[in-house]
């Protein structure tokens, strides 16, 4: 097939296909903007003079997050983390309107396309939409760069609007999103057999196993041995040991997130079984059976939200640790004979930096919710003929709406609790208490200082404070996620209303 034919066929679908391409392109716009922003922060040069102690501070920027080289990788990481739910949103958008696309692909197969060409077409459609989105996103990024460029009176800028990432970064971002989207599109078709007479989807009949639970437990309990293990490794192996313990921590975080996401499949199935076993109303029965029939739908659609919650809970735990650490330092300073300066005004700066990550998590939750909304709408549209037939037979729409709410919220509530617990445990495993003080300075000669009991020594008492569990903030985070999901269900009900329009019986 010639590339021109491929593009023409890929972009030549109907209204649903156009809508799917628009969704995919919109998520690619977001992804491109976020990734280019990360690349820009990464491209900020280090201007300071290492010789005079101002090592690498870039004084062109008023925001310490951009000026201080130690904080810049954190900003880049935060932006990259933000790109994750955006890419999940792209993944959900690709699924939108799949029955219409399936019919089109089947028709193409009937016209002589090979199975490989059909998959290639689907992937090309996604990649084309994502490429358009990437190009548009690059335009949006360049426009934002101009619009947000407001130097202050002293000439410094709050944002690095005077820096551009290198050409390589631009090309990488432009290609990364379409390539990823195309690969995801092809990946989603791995269980689909496109025949000339229609599309057959192979379903997983195996029930979810408990092994994801082991990963969740690893996420909850392994952090408690990370610290002693890290200390041992650092003691025994020096910097290599320290690097190993940091790598171990990353692996644990990854395992925990994967465990929560995959474990939601098991939660969905078990929740479905319980609803089916104990539910009395038709709506509950429908929801229970739906969850049991496709338990992986929960983990697929909720994955970005749960990942954001794991990270969000971890950030809240870390913030609680920082606040406690500052309190311990201040207390130690007050108790020391000569008094100290403590962190003072720097406290708010560090806390603000962490709060920036909290904002990123909040944005991540909203973007993830948008992805879930697309998935929910897609599920409703796919089943619209069955729903319309049920309504025609007298099943009240209220029953279908109730069923939709049950099947969304049943796995969500326990999954949110697990995600928050795991996220918090990741931090509490290594930071249950904060310690400050306990050191000393000696203003005598070497001989005088040799005697630790000499009056030349000024010892500060050690202060250890327990890090509290930020229950209130966790409740706000979990509550906000549930609230956002309730809104998503509300929008889903509007889709349901439209999809059970009895005219569907004519066009189905």
């Amino acid at each position, binding site marked *: 097939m010639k590339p021109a034919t491929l593009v023409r066929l890929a972009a030549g679908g109907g209204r649903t296909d156009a809508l799917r391409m628009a969704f995919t392109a919109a998520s690619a716009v977001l992804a491109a903007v976020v990734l280019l922003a990360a690349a820009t922060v990464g491209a900020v040069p280090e201007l300071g003079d290492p010789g005079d102690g101002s090592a690498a501070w870039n004084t062109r920027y008023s925001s310490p997050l951009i000026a201080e080289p130690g904080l810049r990788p954190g900003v880049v990481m935060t932006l990259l983390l933000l790109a994750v739910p955006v890419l999940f949103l792209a993944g959900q958008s690709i699924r939108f309107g799949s029955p219409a696309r399936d019919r089109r692909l089947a028709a193409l197969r009937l016209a002589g396309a090979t199975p490989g060409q059909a998959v290639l077409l689907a992937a090309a459609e996604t990649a084309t939409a994502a490429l358009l989105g990437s190009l548009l996103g690059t335009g949006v990024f360049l426009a934002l760069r101009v619009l947000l460029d407001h130097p202050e009176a002293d000439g410094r800028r709050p944002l690095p609007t005077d820096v551009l990432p290198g050409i390589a970064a631009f090309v990488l971002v432009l290609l990364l999103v379409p390539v990823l989207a195309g690969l995801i599109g092809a990946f989603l078709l791995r269980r689909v057999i496109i025949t000339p007479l229609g599309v057959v989807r192979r379903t997983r009949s195996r029930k979810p196993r408990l092994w994801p639970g082991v990963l969740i437990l690893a996420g909850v309990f392994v952090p408690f041995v990370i610290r002693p293990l890290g200390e041992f490794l650092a003691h025994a192996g020096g910097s290599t040991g320290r690097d190993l313990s940091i790598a171990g921590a990353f692996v644990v975080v990854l395992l925990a997130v994967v465990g929560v996401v995959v474990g939601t499949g098991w939660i969905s199935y078990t929740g479905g079984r319980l609803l089916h076993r104990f539910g009395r109303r*038709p709506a509950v029965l429908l929801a229970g059976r739906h969850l049991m029939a496709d338990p992986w739908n929960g983990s697929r659609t909720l994955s970005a939200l749960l990942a954001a919650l794991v990270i969000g809970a971890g950030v809240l735990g870390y913030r609680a640790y920082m606040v406690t650490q500052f309190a311990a330092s201040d207390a130690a300073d007050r108790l020391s004979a000569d008094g100290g300066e403590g962190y003072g005004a720097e406290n708010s700066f560090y806390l603000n930096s962490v709060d920036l990550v909290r904002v990123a998590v909040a944005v991540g939750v909203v973007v993830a919710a948008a992805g879930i909304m697309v998935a929910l709408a897609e599920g409703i549209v796919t089943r619209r*003929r069955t729903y319309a037939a049920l309504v025609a037979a007298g*099943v009240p729409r209220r029953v279908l709406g109730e069923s939709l709410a049950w099947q969304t919220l049943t796995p969500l509530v326990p999954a949110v609790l697990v995600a928050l617990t795991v996220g918090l445990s990741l931090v509490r495993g290594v930071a249950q208490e904060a310690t400050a003080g306990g050191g000393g300075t000696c203003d005598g000669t070497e001989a005088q200082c040799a005697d630790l009991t000499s009056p030349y020594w000024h010892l500060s008492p050690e202060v250890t404070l327990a890090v509290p569990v930020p229950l209130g903030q966790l409740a706000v985070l979990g509550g906000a996620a549930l609230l956002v999901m309730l809104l998503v269900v509300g929008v889903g009900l509007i889709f349901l209303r439209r999809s059970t329009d009895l005219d569907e019986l004519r066009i189905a």
Partner: protein
Amino acid sequence: MTALLTGTGLYRSYGPTPALRGLDISVAAGEIVAVTGPSGCGKSTLLHCLAGILRTDAGEVRYRDQDIGLWSEAARSRLRRTDFGVLFQFGQLVPELTAAENVALPLLLAGSGRREARKSATLWLGRFGVGDLADQLPGAMSGGQQQRCAVARALVTEPRVLFADEPTGALDVLTGEQVLTEIVHVAREQGTSVVLVTHEPRIAAYADREVALRDGVLDPTGLGLGLGA
């Protein structure tokens, strides 16, 4: 015979395109009426209007002497749950529910307990020869078996009127005739009226009377598919 269901001066359009243009029809208790005609003549629209699925733009549909066009959507839904049964060509069974659960659904909606609903459902599945598939999901059944389940679901509440829109359209000839024979048998047995939409003469032949449509009105030739009006 006294009319159980009547439609008088029924008019319904989709945008600028009229589907029904002042049509009159009546169905007596226990009567099987075939609505026939070419594609696009308004057969399904007539069925949807009579079943209260669609509102007419003009005219009235009376069931047991009450104008159901004046009823709320909820009241018409209740009517379809209690007094009417609805059967389509395909896409009616909930894919995640077993055959028995699908058939039990209308009973559960009407407030029956799960055990008694299940018992009735199994009984009805047995009547249509698919009792041994009670615990199967629709995806594991053939088209004919699925349609038998759908018929059982439409009749499980013992409705006074069964509306069937091309109920055998997706089945092979033999299976289609088997299913229709069973529908007619049960309808006769319990005195259920049937409004049967079809464009096939051999299916229309199962009816007591044929109402032939053409362009949204009764076929002026009255020939229909040959059964006679």
